[in-house]
């Protein structure tokens, strides 16, 4: 198959950037989208042109490293599929394909299709954990968890942190990402002691990073390669409101001072 690719090219973070047209021929339908780009890069290199920078690592849909907005859709046209698992058989011979990086204020472009997603890490650092040290712990069977609850927590925990939800949202909001982490831990008994501190801190960090607000458009859910439901956003909002009503004294600080 033959394709015309319109690819966003940008030399560095401060560069202007523009779409550049590339053509590629002889592509088998069994190649993945990223393998097609590998091949393009081979050809560009041999011709003495700069290859296209893009992120990828595991290439089996779980590390969350790959990105790309393909024809206006994060991770391309297929539902529940990351770019690395998208195959060229889903395109038609001769198609023109537009490839852009994630577009969001909180994800600045570093080069071509590579963006900086460390804002996500800072949201997690603000509270996306249960505070435990390494060492002996009680036997897990002393704390039974209903299988449905464990499954629902896993539905949220399955988030790969790729950022498609942000790229899909017209507001550039990171609500689905943040809600997935808040819900994963908030559903489980282990996550209860820090449930409200966690949601407050994570939401505040999310806002500080420059992500937009949620206006219930639902684009995030449609773009999520792991099918994470927006019901988790509702859940996070409920927890957030409850946390606001809780006693404002930071008892943690006091405990530290003792």
């Amino acid at each position, binding site marked *: 198959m033959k394709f015309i690719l319109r690819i966003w090219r940008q030399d560095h973070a401060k560069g202007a950037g523009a779409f550049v047209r590339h053509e590629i021929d002889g592509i088998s339908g*069994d190649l993945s989208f990223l393998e097609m780009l590998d091949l393009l*890069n081979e050809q560009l290199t041999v011709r003495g042109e700069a290859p296209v920078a893009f992120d990828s690592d595991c290439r089996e849909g*779980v590390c969350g490293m790959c990105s790309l907005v393909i024809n206006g859709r994060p991770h391309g046209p297929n539902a529940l599929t990351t770019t690395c698992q998208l195959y060229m058989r889903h395109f038609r011979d001769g198609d023109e394909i537009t490839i852009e990086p994630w577009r969001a204020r909180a994800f600045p472009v570093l080069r071509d299709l590579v963006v900086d997603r460390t804002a996500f*890490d800072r949201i*997690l650092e603000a509270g996306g954990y249960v505070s*435990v040290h390494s060492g002996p712990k009680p036997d*897990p069977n002393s704390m039974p968890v209903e299988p449905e609850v464990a499954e629902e927590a896993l539905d949220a925990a399955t988030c790969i942190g790729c950022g498609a939800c942000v790229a899909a949202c017209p507001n550039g909001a990171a609500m689905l990402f943040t809600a997935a982490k808040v819900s994963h831990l908030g559903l489980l008994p282990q996550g209860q002691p820090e449930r409200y501190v966690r949601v407050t801190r994570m939401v505040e960090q999310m806002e500080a990073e420059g992500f937009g607000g949620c206006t219930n458009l639902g684009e995030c859910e449609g773009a999520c390669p792991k099918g994470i439901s927006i019901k988790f956003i509702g859940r996070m909002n409920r927890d957030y409101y409850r946390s606001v009503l809780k006693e404002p004294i930071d008892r943690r600080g006091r405990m530290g001072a003792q």
Partner: protein
Amino acid sequence: MKLDAKVPPGPLREKWDAHVDSIRLVGPRNRPRYSVIVVGTGLAGAAAASSLGALGYQVECFCFQDSPRRAHSIAAQGGINASKGYRNDGDSVMRLFTDTIKGGDFRAREANVYRLAQLSMGIIDQAVAQGVPFAREYGGMLANRSFGGVLVERTFYCRGETGQQLLLGATSSLAKEIHEGHVRMHPRTEILDIVVVDGRARGIVVRDLVSGAISSYAADAVVLATGGYCNVFFLSTMAKGCNVTATYRAWRRGAGFANPCFTQIHPTAIPAGSEHQSKLTLMSESLRNDGRVWVPRKQGDKRPPAEIPEAERYYFLEERYPRFGNLVPRDVAARNAKEVCDKGLGVGATGYGVYLDFRDAIQRLGVKVIEARYHNLFEMYERITNEDPRKAPMRIYPAPHYAMGGLWVDYNLMTTIPGLYAIGEANFSDHGANRLGASALMQALADGYFILPVTIADYLSRNPSGEVKADHAEFKRAEAEVRERTKRLLSVNGKRTVLSFHRELGQLMLDKCGITRSRDGLEEALRKIPELRAQFWRDVKVPGGEGELNQSLEHAGRVADLLDFAELMCLDALTREESCGCHFREEHQTEEGETKRDDERFANVSVWEYQEGARPRLHQEPLAFEAVHLAQRNYKT
């Protein structure tokens, strides 16, 4: 090079506890004075960095990905072993230990493996405390499944994404330590060399992958958690970024490299299709619990699988290994699949594939039950191949998957360079010549959460902190060498891409040093690798410059090191004149075609020492088997 494994005296069951009781510690007030570098944020690295940070050490942590959460441990699917014995099926620490020693074909150190089995239970407890949502039974208790090579159910799992959930648990603890200032995280930063001053590891040289800047970090100890090197085969189940640079550079600086030829070829991956394919995707071994492996009995039988009657199906694992059936260890399953395909019985376009069939399990349990067990694996298979495994059997074929070989470490996980540690897949320690399923996660986390944070204190406490700074002359020299190497790569300006060399190396290694090996093949590889390397340095084309985000340059540096390292692998495979576990030398097999060990000459660890400008020197660490008796593995009766 002196190999002292430092295995504590006393009975096997008491070694670890006695060791912890007797080693030196660093007190809580002194810990913040000591700094430790941790390279890699997979299960081992993230667990170690977070544990050390929580203890109060100053930790500098590095990964080449854009976030620590992306390390390739995330792709582990099936589960993690622990000898909890919840199923009342006779499991115990001793049994997990014995299974691991036998599964590794008697090429691992008993004391390390026993400790691993002991610590396995605490890992599950630790992960659950972090919020890892393991599968539960209806009463709320943890669920188990079985895995290859064992007769008990001791594997804990989260659907088919156990590695992801365990890594998110470990990196969430890491995130907490970053937040509290105990760990400084450096994502998109790649290690390019280790700095040794007066015989001790003192730091590393790194390249910022965004700005291209090369700089140094000094510390009181360096921990490598940099994973395995199966990308030497180009097509493997590893992530694209996985590489050998950290451990290979450590070897050049004096660390012994142990058993480099021990690489595991996983039996159940999706077969390679097209010539431009970039990786192989694993289908979890847990599928062999319900899937039956078969090929047509007749050569070149092109009928669709559903039309092949039962009598004409060759369930080769069940027939050859009635006791374990489809659940034989990985090396046995992989070799048998290759053998039937070599005989012309293979299926699919290339003839290199076998069926993994769920028909009987679906008839027995219903599609719903099977769907619940393997939902995401079925989905993944369907996405890649465009075929539905509920209706037609999967096609699978072995793929390079895990490196049992790695830097030699003593009982404390320290390499032969004082102050340099290797943990997780980067070391050689616990899996011998073949790793059992669901044991990689267990080993990486035992190393990272429970072993290294304790043993490293013994080393640190014996030395003052902050003795050497990054402005030391050795750092400047190492940095200059890294810059020189980078310039050389950029200045060749030949005609061939890095990828084309990587593919060629991979094909050669898969043919000559893959599922089976022979003297002739290995000698041929040892002739061809230097030729390919010479061609690489003559004709590679690396576009772009040094001071920028340059993925071609990253790849070129990794491939250059793989080209050097491949030779060491072949040399090791050639020197080990026996078959054991995944190392199958055609010259050394039983009449039934099984591995034939030579315990007289090779019940040892091969440890290679780098020699400037000369052939690497071989040392051997003898292995004594006192708790488990040396015996031919038997998965048949």
